[in-house]
């Protein structure tokens, strides 16, 4: 999902388009004065001691909403947060990973009073831009030690919680007693979701076999590899597959579409448009960044931004399972019960940080 290695792709034309868009953005943001702030002097006025009233913010994402996942979730959340707060948002998709300091600086110079840098690979560049421009930037997946008051704070998805809920749904849906995990990259969030998923499965039925496969260390966009891995996991007998993969998701969906009696669990976004038969979607572990963005913007205005990390979790509605026809009332009830357990702390899914740790959780059948 997010790593520097993905930035190695040759996407020259897209980069040029992004630079053009950000240039135009700089002009348009500078010229724009509508929204909550009123005129320019208002937009920089202090809303609270040490805070800045936010009338316009921006989200910079490495890809666009067609990934059915991470980028889609960020862009949708930014639009929803803007709607909720009655402010303006400018979305800069397809920014890639190269020259991110330039993109963020142009966005800041264009008048954005708060920026969401929607990729963990943006962390280093975002920190230097925030320090130079004094525009607060929300980065991703960083520890609290990277917080800098009024400059940098992080949004942190609690993927293990969503994975746990998905595991319950998978365990209650499988008839072959085999469920599969397919990852397209070595990604901390996906490892956490995978360990949570395995424990969720075992909490329902420890006899269920959890199969695991990875397309590659950074094969985020490898649709062909994704299809191959998913086909093989289905051939091994899995009839519920939990796929995590950005562009590789398209490969997963082709394999799911071609198989019979197999259900798919997506992550982060809504993959329904990508399936020819929508009934094959059991659910999706949806990530909703809106609560995190709204809280961060309010903290910018209060002058407290950079003092806390903003969770994307079950408790604040940032992590939940998508409703589908395949989610029976029994599954929904079990998921709701587990959600309460996560909120009250009686259920604490393991946070795996590597493939080996995921394998250990799968082998240990913890959660049973």
């Amino acid at each position: 999902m997010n790593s520097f290695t993905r930035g190695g792709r040759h996407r020259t034309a897209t980069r040029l388009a992004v630079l053009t868009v950000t240039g135009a953005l700089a002009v348009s943001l500078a010229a724009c004065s509508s929204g909550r702030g009123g005129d320019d002097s208002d937009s920089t006025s202090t809303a609270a001691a040490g805070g800045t009233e936010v009338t316009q913010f921006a989200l910079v994402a490495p890809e666009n909403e067609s990934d059915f996942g991470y980028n889609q979730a960020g862009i949708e959340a930014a639009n929803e947060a803007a709607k909720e707060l009655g402010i303006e948002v400018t979305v800069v998709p397809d920014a890639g990973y190269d020259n991110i300091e330039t993109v963020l600086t142009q966005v800041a110079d264009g008048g954005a009073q708060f920026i969401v840098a929607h990729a963990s690979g943006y962390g280093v560049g975002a920190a230097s831009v925030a320090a130079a421009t004094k525009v607060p930037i929300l980065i991703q997946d960083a520890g609290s030690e990277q917080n800098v008051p009024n400059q940098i704070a992080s949004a942190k998805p609690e993927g293990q919680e969503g994975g746990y809920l998905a595991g319950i749904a998978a365990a209650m849906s499988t008839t072959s007693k085999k469920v599969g995990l397919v990852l397209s990259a070595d990604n901390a969030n996906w490892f956490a979701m995978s360990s949570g998923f395995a424990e969720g499965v075992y909490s329902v039925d420890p006899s269920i076999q959890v199969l695991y496969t990875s397309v590659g260390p950074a094969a985020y966009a490898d649709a062909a590899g994704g299809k191959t891995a998913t086909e093989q996991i289905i051939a091994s007998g899995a009839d519920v597959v939990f796929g995590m993969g950005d562009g590789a998701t398209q490969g997963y969906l082709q394999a799911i579409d071609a198989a019979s009696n197999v259900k798919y669990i997506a992550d982060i976004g809504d993959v329904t448009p990508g399936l020819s038969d929508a009934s094959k979607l059991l659910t999706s572990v949806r990530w909703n960044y809106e609560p995190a963005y709204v809280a961060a913007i309010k903290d910018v205005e209060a002058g407290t931004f950079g003092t806390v990390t903003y969770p994307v979790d079950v408790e604040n509605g940032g992590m939940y399972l998508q409703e589908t026809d395949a989610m029976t009332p029994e599954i929904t009830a079990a998921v709701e019960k587990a959600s309460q357990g996560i909120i009250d702390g009686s259920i604490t899914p393991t946070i795996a940080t590597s493939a080996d740790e995921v394998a250990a959780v799968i082998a240990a059948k913890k959660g049973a």
Partner: protein
Amino acid sequence: MSDLLSTAFVTVFVATVIAQALPLMLASVGETIGEQAGVLNLGLEGVMLIGAYVAFVTTLTTGNFWFGMLAGAVGGVVANLAMLVLNVWLGLNQIVIGLAVTLIGEGITSVLYLQNYTKSPASLGSQPSMPIPGLSEIPVVGQAVFSQSGIFWVVILITLGLAFAMARTNWGLSTRSAGQKPSSLDAAGGSVMRTRSIAVVLNGALAGMGGAYLALLTTSTFSPMLTNGLGFIAIVITMLSRGRILIVMITSLVYGLAVAIGPALQVSGVSVPADIIKMLPFLIVIVMLIVFARSSVVPPALGAAYSRGAR
């Protein structure tokens, strides 16, 4: 581990090997013909991507996979026109033009896809299979090999036909002469320009078909950078195969095996790092390069523009 031995799993495994091998095989055969004629096409990656995208759009529009394959071949030829005009006809640097074609292919297909399919990514579905009576009933290979689509068999026939033509026909002899000693071909009354032009057109058509096969049959969709370096692997395989198309076919199958084996091991519970899985096909190619480097022979005139009378 017992999961690996089930009929269903082995069937899918064999089918995966084939699905991964054929795009590479088509591109490698195309590159073989080009290189034997003396034209090094480093733009193969870009040509494959253009072929894949054109095939994807055509199939999506018409609903017909055969039209998609044909369009992929045409797209490949069009993409290779830069090689034809700038390299063969004008004698410009083949390496520079080839890399430019790769970058253009990667960029233009990514931009067009993101422009047109961002909101509603499309699936092509599966190409109807063509079971061969009797043979398709054989366990494992019956489903994996003898129940492939018609396109698979056409591709195999084209490849075998080209292998025969390159080895046994006057056209094949002329093509190899254009790469070995173009002045001899010229002196014998043959046209080096025409021979190389035909080779470049075939190179483009086959690379385009390789991309089309990857999009239509292997992946059933298109995504930016779909080829993932396949074009460059095809160039290496071509150089290792010394112009022998049958060796190209075998080497492509080894590549398909390398791609399929990683996920298979993981699914069976064997702990294989994702890095190894992704590296395996490339590692095998590197090992082959090391082992067979001494026996790899490229045509003496490869990469050199031909100018009558020039020394």
